[in-house]
């Protein structure tokens, strides 16, 4: 059996490659070149940089596996970077990592797995794929603090049948300990946090580079529509944001709405921010989706726990009622449905 391992140059995918060798697979390591500067060079700051590729290459050499850099710049720019920028211009809060997994990593790369004569695609994501009979289920990682099942919700049965996530079975501490025992150079490398193509660390600088018009100023409104301040561009804001509103009115205020056409944002109290439910589209299933009336858990942002909800509408549009009112989810983010530890599927939030 032959495995194609997507190696980012981080510790998780380094260990994933080593574990596949241990399991007796023939292993090929690849790094996706997703983003480049104007001169065609890989970026030197942020993540997925030239030095990350070099780390991956050196780990591959240590493991004595072939290693290649694959050019996905065009696919990535089209499927991830441009929608990311456009999403912000449209007042959304896009999740580029999910778009990348959806349209590049687990789409193009699964095709590539076949083309290269490999049987399985392996990544360093923290999540688990379990086989029950002839069905596959996507489960949260053993290490709850590192769980990445949210960003993998788009994996279909067919994809899950070809994907192996070896480090999902380990805690991050164990991953680092294993890397250290193996003498892998990435053992103590810090986790990446940034959006890989936002090399300055601030997505606003990045947007400004692509779309100078993002700095268009506008009004800050209260819930009655009265002007209570001004702002330097709607892309500086995301729903639920509390900091940087430039308005001081005693009780904390949160962004409730972003209207890019009017160039306004609306702010209100925490109470104003709470909503009963939300709507998502483009629902993808990992195997079987719930039906109307089913009680499930939904996770509406990367850094929050799933909360109990009921499916109120299913089909083209999916509407969910939260058991308890929740801070308003940001349109553009992913909504992922869980049955306990298992991912049922997910889509993109359009309204709340």
């Amino acid at each position, binding site marked *: 059996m032959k495995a194609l391992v997507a190696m980012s140059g981080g510790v998780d995918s380094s260990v994933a490659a080593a574990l596949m060798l241990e399991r007796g697979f023939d292993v090929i390591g690849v790094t996706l070149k997703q983003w480049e500067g104007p001169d065609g060079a890989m970026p030197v700051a942020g993540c997925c940089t030239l030095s990350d590729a070099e780390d991956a290459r050196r780990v591959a050499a240590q493991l004595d596996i072939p290693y*290649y*850099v694959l*050019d996905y710049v065009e696919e990535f720019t089209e499927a991830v970077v441009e929608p990311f920028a456009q999403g912000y211009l449209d007042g959304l809060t896009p999740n580029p990592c999910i778009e990348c997994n959806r349209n590049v990593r687990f789409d193009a790369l699964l095709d590539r797995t076949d*083309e*290269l004569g490999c049987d399985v695609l392996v990544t360093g994501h923290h999540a688990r794929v379990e086989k029950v009979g002839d069905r596959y289920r996507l489960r949260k990682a053993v290490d709850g603090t590192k769980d990445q099942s949210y960003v993998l919700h788009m994996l279909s049965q067919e994809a899950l049948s070809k994907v192996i996530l070896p480090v999902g079975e380990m805690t991050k501490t164990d991953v680092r300990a294993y890397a250290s025992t193996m003498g892998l150079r990435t053992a103590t490398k810090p986790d990446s946090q940034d959006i890989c193509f936002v090399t300055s660390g601030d997505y606003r600088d990045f947007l400004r580079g692509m779309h100078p018009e993002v700095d268009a100023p506008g009004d800050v409104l209260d819930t009655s529509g009265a002007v209570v301040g001004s702002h330097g561009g709607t892309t500086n804001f995301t729903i639920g944001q509390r900091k940087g509103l430039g308005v001081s009115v005693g009780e904390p205020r949160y962004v409730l709405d972003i209207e890019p056409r009017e160039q306004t944002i609306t702010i209100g109290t925490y109470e104003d921010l709470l909503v009963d439910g939300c709507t998502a589209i483009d629902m993808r299933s990992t195997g079987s989706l719930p039906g109307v009336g089913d009680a499930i858990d939904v996770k509406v942002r990367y850094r929050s726990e799933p909360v109990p909800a009921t499916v109120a509408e299913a089909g083209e549009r999916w509407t969910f009622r939260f058991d308890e009112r929740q801070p308003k989810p940001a349109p553009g983010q992913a909504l992922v449905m869980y049955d306990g530890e298992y991912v049922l599927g997910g889509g993109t939030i359009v309204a709340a």
Partner: protein
Amino acid sequence: MTNMTDALYLDHAATTDAHPEVVDVVAKAMTDTNANASGLHGPARAAKNAMEEAREEAASLLGVGRPLDIVFTSGGTEADNLAIGGIRVGDRRTVVTTAIEHEAVLESVEARRRRGDEVRIVGVDVEGRVSPADLVDHIDPSVGLVSVMAANNETGVIQPVPEIADQVKQVDPNVLVHTDAVQAFATQPVDLATMDVDALSLAAHKFGGPKGVGLLAVRSAIAIDPVLHGGGQEAGRRSGTYNVPGIVGMVTAMRITVRDRDANAERLKAERDEFERIVTSAYPDAVVTGAGADRLVSHSHIHFPGTLAETLLIRLDTEGIAAAAGSACQSGAVEPSHVLTAMGFDDIAAGECIRFSFGWSSPAGIGTDAAKRVVAVLEQVR
């Protein structure tokens, strides 16, 4: 990991095997003549003497009037940079070159453009050839330097450099002509007289010498401004401690190459032609790039419609076959080729081409062996 001798090595155009005599000469120079050749003592004189002997031999092999018209460099890239950036032609500041040059030339002319000089880039036909008439159309009294490669590194297509030089000189004898002969030297007669040029660049590792050494040969009386500044070596034209082992290694490789060139070329042409015959009969939709032009006998550049070069290269590598596509960027990803774009390939077709290249060390029968193994991999992919 595999080394060059384990693999079925079809990437001689990138780097060919070092001649065993070269390895010996380099090792010997690193023990016997390893002093800094700029010193005044005996060991320095020995090193300097070894180098100057090599310079005389290089001058003779390249038809250069005086040994000092050879400037040793760190390789082909530096030689091209020195030619484009350093050759002075009075106050004529326009440079004419072609769309298919190596990046060492294209980026050097780009650097001159940034400094305010005019740059004129001449296109090629579908076979990848520069037309002398097209090029001559770009000559006017502002032009000081013309640079046209002797043969393209990707396709192997040989450029009509003597005709171009002749026609340029007829229009304006004051224009100087440089040729990047890095890829051609291994299998083609290359010297100033044959090429009818004023300057030429070579890189040792393309013909069995070490990496990190090359040269720029110029006609006598051509003035060169340095690109690398420092201690004033190479008569002030190229500073940096003399790389004596590299230089004597390169000139040894030049001697062997020139001695064996005709015999090698004849043998490689037969192998290459057999390789192409077998591959294209197994895959009739495969198209040999530049088949209608004169090509280096070492090169076989083939378009496989519908097969991504990146995928094919990895499958070939998996089977122990070393080949290449376009040029690799710093990260190692396959980049679209400006050469193929200039020939009219669209982005998709340009991403479906593989270069197989042969060299002096390619064993007898490699054409048939390589073709069979490549066809077997193609069968897996298609």
